[in-house]
């Protein structure tokens, strides 16, 4: 498997990268970790004329805590996310989800910005960012834009990015009070695309009522899905077996799976959304309670 040829650039700054992107627009692709892009190029399903390799732009790689927010640079590799003590302290769902991405070698290269820009509905981090109500900061020569994660994923492999724009960072408002999250994945084998996976993030007040619920779904729609009805159903409610069960049922009804001859029928996937949502919520609740 050999890709078509291309012109290669290795800019050393974000500005330089944006200038190139502005010049070549949709004829160009940004190369970050390359873990999705390069296989597609080798199969000649994608053949950019220009490749803008941002791996030398180290200023795009960071995990920063800032007041009540967390900023993650687009070039941050899954390896960094998996190991990050900042995330372990503030948003351990990120560390957990990172361990489910591909395999160790893929995580050593693969970047969060690359995956989100690739917008594969079976990508793991789209669901996590949706569950966390994250925001995507994009940049271009025209300046920056802030896009809600929910608006960022437009369709399969399609994002709200303009042709001259690249994903710069992910911003997440840090949860308050008692909170916990979980990423639960059902897969055929280690490192495979999910049959179904669910990201859940919860906060509870002192009375045990839910004051934040975030649920993201993997591999059950044209994009990673935010289970909004399920989230709002849970908000303000006591978390118990019954409410969790109902929430999971609603999440399943929000899923839009299609039959996959290898990874499961739509019927099975929908049923698994319920099972996994329950599991993720129970785990998140346990973690929120610190037990």
């Amino acid at each position, binding site marked *: 498997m*050999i890709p078509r040829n291309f012109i290669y650039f290795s800019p050393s700054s974000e500005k330089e990268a944006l200038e190139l992107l502005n010049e070549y627009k949709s004829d160009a692709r940004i190369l970050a970790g390359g873990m999705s892009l390069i*296989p597609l190029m080798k199969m000649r399903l994608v053949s950019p004329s220009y490749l803008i390799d941002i791996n030398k732009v180290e200023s795009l790689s960071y995990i920063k805590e800032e007041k009540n927010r967390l900023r993650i640079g687009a070039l941050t590799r899954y390896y960094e996310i998996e190991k990050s003590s900042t995330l372990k302290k503030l948003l351990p769902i990120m560390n957990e989800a990172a361990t489910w991405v591909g395999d160790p070698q893929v995580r050593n290269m693969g970047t969060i910005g690359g995956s989100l820009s690739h917008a594969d509905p079976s990508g793991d981090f789209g669901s996590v960012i949706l569950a966390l109500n994250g925001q995507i900061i994009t940049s271009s020569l025209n300046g920056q834009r802030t896009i809600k994660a929910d608006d960022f994923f437009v369709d399969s492999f399609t994002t709200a990015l303009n042709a001259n724009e690249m994903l710069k960072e992910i911003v997440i408002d840090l949860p308050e009070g008692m909170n916990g999250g979980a990423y639960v994945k059902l897969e055929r*084998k280690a490192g*495979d695309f999910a049959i179904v996976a669910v990201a859940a993030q919860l906060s509870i007040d002192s009375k045990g009522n839910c004051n934040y619920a975030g649920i993201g779904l993997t591999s059950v729609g044209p994009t990673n899905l935010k289970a909004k009805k399920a989230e709002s159903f849970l908000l303000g409610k006591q978390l118990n077996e019954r409410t969790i069960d109902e929430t999971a049922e609603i999440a399943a009804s929000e899923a839009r799976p299609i039959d996959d001859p290898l990874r499961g029928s739509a019927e099975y996937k929908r049923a698994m959304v319920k099972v996994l949502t329950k599991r993720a919520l129970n785990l998140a609740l346990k973690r929120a309670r610190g037990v």
Partner: protein
Amino acid sequence: MAVTAIFGARVKRKEDPRLITGKGTYVADITPLGCLYVAFLRSPHAHARIKSINASKALSMKGVIAVYVGQDIKGKLNPVPTGWPIATDPPIKIPKYYPLPLDKVRFQGEPVAAVVAENYYIARDALDAIEVEYEPLPTVVNQEEAVKESAPLLYDDIPNNTSFVWELKGGDVDSAFKEADLIIEKRMVNHRLQPTPMESRAVVAQYNSATNELTMWITTQAPHIHRLLISGILNMPENKIRVIAPDVGGGFGSKIPTYGVDALVAFIAKELKRPVKFVEDRRENYLATAHGRDHIQYVQLAAKKDGRILGLKVTSYANLGAYLSTAAPGVPTYLFGLMLSGAYKIKAVNCKVYGVLTNTAPVDAYRGAGRPEATYLVERMVDILAQRLKMDPAELRKINFIKHDEFPYVVCTGIQYDSGNYERTLEKALQLVEYKKMRGEQAKARAEGKLIGIGISSYVEICGLGPSRAVRGTGFSLGLYESATVRVHPSGKVTVYTGTSPHGQGEETAFAQIVAEEFGISIDDVEVVHGDTAMIPWGMGTYGSRTVPVGGGAIAIAAKKIIEKAKKIAANMLEVKEEDLAFEKGRFYVKGAPSRGVSFQEVALASYQGEQLPAGMEPGLEATTFYDPENFTFPFGTHVCVVEIDKDTGQINILKYVAVDDCGRQINPMIVEGQVHGGIAQGLAQAIWEEAVYDNSGNLITATLQDYAMPTAMEIPSFITDSTVTPSPHNPLGVKGVGETGTIASTPALVNAVVDALSHMGIDHIDIPLKPERIWKLLKNR
């Protein structure tokens, strides 16, 4: 130097130092100077008429040397022959299998054009520039569909797409069924698999136009057979072709067949008078290298209420793919049907196999080849019978086993099992898994609503292929003896030349152990050469767990011949009678006067010096043997698997896996264990994860390792392995072979465990692979 009992020792492998340092040589590592590269344009259609091919754009690209299509080889290359044209009535219909199709493509990925270029990148680019006009034709991928009158035909002269109908009538099946208290009927699917050696296929061909000599490096399990068949395809004298199998990265059956493209690469090297190289990528390997299994079986089992099995009727539809690959006809017939009595005394077995052509990749041997298909069927039926009779499956097996004192035993299919003690491996496996305790835990878990299952599989398989008279009787084109040359050099160092072609099984070590033991020398003084037709007299290759029983047998006999000669020389050197000499630890000495002796090395030197030889004896110390075994060998054993099923998702968790195998005497128990581990993993892979999937149009949708679910270290558990030793009585070493036992045993062990976990819900069978969804669906409806 004290050498004791090297046969049977856990010796570290001699082949490893090069392989762990990156110094191995695989075919893809070989690039002769001036080498050209071939890339194949492959059909996107599973069935289509080729209306035209226009390669002019490709030919105008810089670095592209030539393009070949079917019409270019017409009359120049013969079709790829089938090596196992089984005898049937009416006779088997063998379609013409040209290296490049002349008019029609019959499976997705069949090559339609070969581009030759200065490097692989250019060759790949040129593929995109070739224009092919196809007329798509109706497609059939399923064998039960293909035999219907309404099905599209792959070949006008092969009605019902049926290449052959093979029948085996062992015993009086009608009377067996009349006697029965109950008859169980089942339809079973043994699905298609992609063998997936980690190294795909590759070939390099180099031609010397002055000497008319062709050298080919091929990823093959059988270099001499490849040489013979390629000589036929090329119309080239066999003795002008040298085939070398260097380090080969696994085969599992898929590197037994001779592939048309290999002959084509040689043809191109001859035409262009430059070395030519072709290395498959994984997608090509999946599309066009032979697949395995793919049976649909209809089974009837007749039994008495007390558990005695009386008879078995089997009708199997074997999907052979679009062409008959080298061993394809024999695998789903003889290697399947003959083993349908399993480890049991069954009065009668009738088996009918339809060999069906479809628009899919050719199917050939895959680890176990026929025996897994038989064992899975038998071991599943035994468990279903136990369930019906509410008997313990271990007890039911004991009732029906051929007993240890009944060997050799001729089963109703007509073959003679050489030796066995089936009760003992079963008992040992049950002990290791703590069977009674496990049953107790299962009952407890069930009461708590958990699903735990215990699955037993007791197998016997046919190995050591094989006695030439018997295999020729099945239609196999050659005998299945094996050759060996053992050459003792003047220094006493030894080179062993074997006609087998190991590619991971460790015979460079195991064979050295045999010889070191015989000669009483260090294993470091023995080198084993394999996989080169220029160095080895003749060989049938490595497959069917034949390497040690047949190839090793040949070496043992050759070594004994050398000892006989050496003893004569030693007697002459010591001026004593031969019968007064003893040979021990590498030294010939006079019985009763042990200080009077000569070492093996001294004898070796003397044999080349000549003057100390007995009168009339030829100098030198080497022997060549062709060993034709008198019977097959029959390894056996019992595997037990314990699983827990996740009720919500249908996922299977393997809690425990015990394997007790008996492969006769073991040359190197470490290697035996390794073979068992890998075998089990492959059988489990079929049971749960792996499946080659074609859609109805004949598109292979598992054409990469992203989609073909080969398990990782996260899915495969650790195994508890043990063994018993029941030597083969007729084999020179008492060995039986162990390359396929794990694969044969583990698929039914796992499936029996899963069905056992669900049996209280009235479930008695689930078709493999046991994807979580299949189990979930069953649970949901209960």
